[in-house]
């Protein structure tokens, strides 16, 4: 923790970075995002099991990007990132939303975070996104901090749920998802919290023509949730922010994770793992399977 504060202070002092996007302690078991722009404030930065946010979401915001522009030069943006957050940063770079040299990644070694604030960290309270996680050390980083600890071993709840849903008949499945999607109030917290939902204008906000109805009724909710899940297919890095942000407890990770599994099985691709490969849906291979087509 001290090394993080020291590093951030140095980076800000010698003008390597214009700002550090990081976490600030609220109380014992709660943190919140903070954008540190002065060396004095660097002492506010923390990192622990309560750093739930995926801060990569801020990297595509216009005002945050503008912070980096100082006196005619562009500095880097520093970001405190868990290994999974770094996948999001990598995906953003792959999708040309960001340049590698524009960001200074303070990669933290991570052994998992809690499901929600206020909980003690243990196997039972381990966030569901952390159970299948195999990246406890950053893949890409400019500095690598933090100690390596063991992640509690617990069963993969989301995968079990996915399989349980797959066992249902088509009709039951449709009913199940209809019921879940009906809860949706279209606050678009899922979209806002997602680091990869960076479109300047989302398809649901387009009105001429209106492809996805803006009404939060059964049909509009179904369209929106299908479109959201589809647009993240093969891109989702599984940070689970959408589900955490959802005020109505819709199991969004079921869809995201299911699509991630498809990407793995059909294309042997996991999003956000390599800066050297093109994105899955932005590229193609003539040897892709043709099974689907008559």
């Amino acid at each position, binding site marked *: 923790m001290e090394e993080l504060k020291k590093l951030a202070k140095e980076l800000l002092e010698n003008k390597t970075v214009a700002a550090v996007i990081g976490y600030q302690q*609220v*109380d014992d078991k*709660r*943190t*919140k*995002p*903070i*954008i540190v722009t002065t060396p004095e404030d660097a002492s506010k930065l923390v990192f622990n099991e309560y750093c739930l*946010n995926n801060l990569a*979401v801020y990297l595509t*915001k216009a*005002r*945050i990007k503008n912070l980096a522009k100082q006196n005619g030069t562009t500095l880097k943006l520093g970001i405190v990132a868990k290994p999974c957050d770094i996948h999001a940063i990598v995906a953003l770079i792959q999708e040309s939303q960001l340049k590698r040299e524009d960001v200074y990644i303070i990669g933290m070694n991570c052994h998992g975070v809690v499901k929600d*604030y206020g909980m003690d960290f243990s196997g039972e309270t381990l966030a569901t996104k952390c159970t299948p996680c195999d990246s406890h050390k950053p893949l890409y980083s400019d500095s690598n901090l933090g100690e390596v600890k063991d992640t509690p071993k617990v069963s993969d709840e989301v995968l079990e749920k996915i399989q349980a849903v797959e066992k249902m008949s088509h009709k039951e499945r449709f009913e199940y998802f209809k019921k879940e999607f009906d*809860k949706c*109030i*279209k*606050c*678009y*917290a899922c*979209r*806002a*919290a997602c680091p990869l939902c960076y479109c300047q204008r989302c398809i649901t*906000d387009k009105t001429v023509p209106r492809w996805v*109805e*803006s*009404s*939060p*009724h059964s049909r*509009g909710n179904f369209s929106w949730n299908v479109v959201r899940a589809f647009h993240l297919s093969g891109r989702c890095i599984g940070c689970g*922010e959408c589900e*955490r*942000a959802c*005020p*109505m*407890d819709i199991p969004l990770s079921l869809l995201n994770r299911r699509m991630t599994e498809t990407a793995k099985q059909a294309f042997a691709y996991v999003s956000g793992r390599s800066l050297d490969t093109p994105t899955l849906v932005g590229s193609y291979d003539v040897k892709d399977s043709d099974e689907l087509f008559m």
Partner: protein
Amino acid sequence: MDEKIISKQNLVNFCKDIVANGHNLLAPGKTEYNLIQDPSEIVLDTKSKPTKASYKTFVFPKAEPILYYKRGKNDVVMLDAKVDEKKTVIFGAKPCDTNSFNILNKIFNWDYKDDFYNERVKNFIVIGLMCEYSDRYCFCTSVGSSPVSEKGSDLFLVPIDENNYAVRIVTDKGKEFIGAYSKYFTEGAPEKSKAAEEKVKQPEVAFDSKQVHEWLGKNFEHPKWDGVGDLCLSCAQCAFVCPVCHCFDLVDEDYSYTEGRRMKNWDGCQFGHFTLHASGHNPRDIQGKRYRQRINHKFKYYVDKFDEILCTGCGRCSRGCAVSIDIKEIVANCTD
């Protein structure tokens, strides 16, 4: 004020009768207030966390048709949508929720009287329940309410011992409603419920709303708004779970070339396109301005117009915020 007593067993019977009489019965669940089919599932817990969503959707639905239309060659035939006249009874509502109708009544009966809202409220019976839950986000006491406030309830429940609840009859509507169920109630003992209420721990008063009001009037261009704005992700979670946020959007939805409906859907002031003009100009173009609007609307404009704070202090917006923006903390800092 009249007071009765009802035993736990009779409370369930009371609820069963409500359902049997064909009324909608709502009770708090984990995420939202649920329609109850089997009253024995209801768990009345004064210590439970407030639901993630408020119950405003039952009087001001997230989506409702207000009219239907069919296009003719020369004109359009329109048909008003009607409101379901079924009575709805909400059971075990938190005092911070019950206060919402008092606040919403003002805006929905201001220059235009909203029939859809008024009709539903007329058929709504609110049975409040004393609250013993409190976390860092609660601030009902700062906006003139309290965990034992009866404001907005028709009937108010206070647990007096393990097996009995005191039922305080707050409004004539409530009195009339329980008239038909009088066999379940026995004479009350106000001193017991008073004692129970006094034991409730009140959340600390975080700010003085008058001072905040004054400060907001003077600090429209304060740099702090940009600070919050940079962190806010521009979703409408806060507005949509809020018991008193009432902005809506009107959309026409065709379902064929010739027919369709006009929908009234919730809208949120934190969306970037909320104030986007057709010309392309956006008066609230950055998030800081939008957040300023949210606070100002709640603690200044609404007060100026209706002499009421547009906030019940339930803390839902902060509790659910993905980036932990705490409205209480922000408003408490709105002082010199």
